């Protein structure tokens, strides 16, 4: 069950552990994300999926274990440094600058990618090198018409799209998407599924998702997390037919 991280692993984590008091939220988790793939992480509520994402992104410190990104250890780096290396992330609960328009939210990512935020004089809204890439990212997720709307006034689904646009604009080398489909209608989910399908060619995606149709349609590999442990990992078919998964997760009495 232990995976060896192949030479094409963009992101690989080994033996990650995190406890909150007596609760083992992450229990010796190892997995990797390879170039060009969508690796889905599924599991019941409270299995520790978001906790895992937090540790990869740097918002939580693991108790033990290693995280390598693009061949270098990143466990000691802060959130901002990991993001600059190319870890693009969307949040389970949307996390945006609420007063800023969708466009300005994306522009923030563009300016970070271009390097320094310590520029004091040139107005950002008249800076085509910020506005144009941001607009392009919004267009790709289908939010171009909503560019000038404050993030706080966007619908739930639109905020999810905006988060992905931000990750795109960052030029991410890997995406960590925490339930991007949550709160979307069927039409939105279908569109986003198509979009993620194309996105994997650009950078691999570690996808947490409850929508099993989406997972089975998209994932190249699936890992199942229960009580902080990876109980199974493999292709969609392998996971569907794995007895332990059926028992622990899909509620199959088998």
């Amino acid at each position, binding site marked *: 069950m232990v995976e060896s991280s192949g030479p094409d692993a963009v992101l690989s984590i080994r033996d990650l552990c995190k406890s909150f008091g007596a609760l083992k939220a992450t229990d010796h988790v190892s997995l990797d994300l390879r170039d060009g793939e969508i690796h889905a992480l599924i599991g019941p509520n409270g299995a520790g999926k978001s906790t895992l994402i937090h540790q990869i992104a740097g918002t939580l410190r693991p108790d033990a274990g290693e995280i390598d990104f693009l061949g270098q250890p990143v466990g000691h780096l802060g959130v901002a440094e990991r993001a600059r290396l190319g870890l693009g992330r969307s949040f389970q609960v949307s996390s*945006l*600058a609420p007063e800023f328009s969708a466009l*300005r939210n994306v522009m923030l990512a563009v*300016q*970070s990618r271009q390097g320094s935020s310590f520029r*004091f004089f040139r*107005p950002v*809204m008249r800076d085509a090198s910020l506005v144009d890439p941001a607009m392009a990212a919004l267009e790709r997720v289908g939010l171009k018409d909503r560019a000038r709307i404050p993030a706080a006034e966007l619908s739930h689904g639109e905020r999810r799209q905006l988060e992905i646009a931000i990750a795109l604009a960052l030029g991410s080398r890997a995406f960590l998407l925490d339930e991007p489909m949550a709160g979307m209608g069927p039409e939105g989910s279908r569109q986003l599924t198509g979009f993620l399908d194309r996105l994997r060619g650009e950078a691999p995606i570690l996808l947490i998702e409850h929508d099993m149709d989406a997972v089975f349609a998209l994932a190249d590999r699936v890992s199942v997390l229960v009580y902080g442990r990876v109980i199974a990992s493999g292709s969609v078919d392998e996971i569907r037919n794995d007895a332990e998964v059926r028992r622990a997760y899909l509620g199959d009495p088998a």
Partner: protein
Amino acid sequence: MTISRETVINLALALLLLAIPYAAIQLGNPFYVTLATRMAILGLAAVGLNIALGLGGLVSFGHAAFFGVGGYVAGILASHAMSMQPFNFGLFTLSGSNQMPVIWLVALVAGGLLAAAIGAISLRTSGVYFIMITLAFAQMTYYFAISWPAYGGEDGLSILIRNQFPGVNTMVPLNYFLICYAVLIAAILVSMLIRDSRFGAALQASRQNEVRVASVGIAPFRIRLAAFVISGMMTALAGALYADLNRFVSPSMLSWHMSGEFIVLIILGGVGRLYGPVAGAMLFVMFEFLLGGMTERWQFFLGLVLLGVVLFARGGLIGLLAGRARHG
């Protein structure tokens, strides 16, 4: 490009402040020139604070420290220039100065250094901690000024002759007003540039959502520290001008009450608005003058008004006139 209602109000405020001293002289009441100068200087101090508080959401209750440091820079340099006694740093000596540009530069540097030191410690925390720590550090400078007798201690330090500006007779009240007004307008322009810049975008986003800023790869701490330093520098500059206005500097410029007043100015005018601090300073000085003329107890009524504004009119004056703030 359309001109927003706020822009019109801002322009009107700037012109109104400029008109006050001329009207005062026309009406044969030159005392009002000093009032207008006070408005400009307090407005400048609050413009500085507004960069930290309005744009960055950093509620500093310690900006009197920077104001006072600016004031003492003016007072100390002037007193050394007056007595012809250079500063003795052991290895080298430096003479004092009564030239405003020199004094301003030193005030900016001193304010910036103090802000960097205070900010580096207090920005490790946030929220209530930040408020209490900035308050405490400002109190520290206050007690230091009181217990250090070389420059007047508790009694303060007089500037016998107002410091000079090349080519201008600063003792003429209108001239001094114009100097302060020009500095104020320049500071507003700088803060507008900052607001609209990349740095400003990162700063305002850090106020709205710190995690978001970090996860696009921008470390909020450094942005905030830089904003705090810029903010402290502007307020220190205002302090230097204030000392020259009164030709006196004392520990009261460093008191917690002063810090509170700066926040009040911003709230009266409107938080995060470009001209909010100016509107607030004009209101405040007018209020102080009118009510102070009627009753010794004017601060009691100021308290009531302030309470009313906080509880019921949160946008301040500019919010009242121009409606909700907009972000592009």
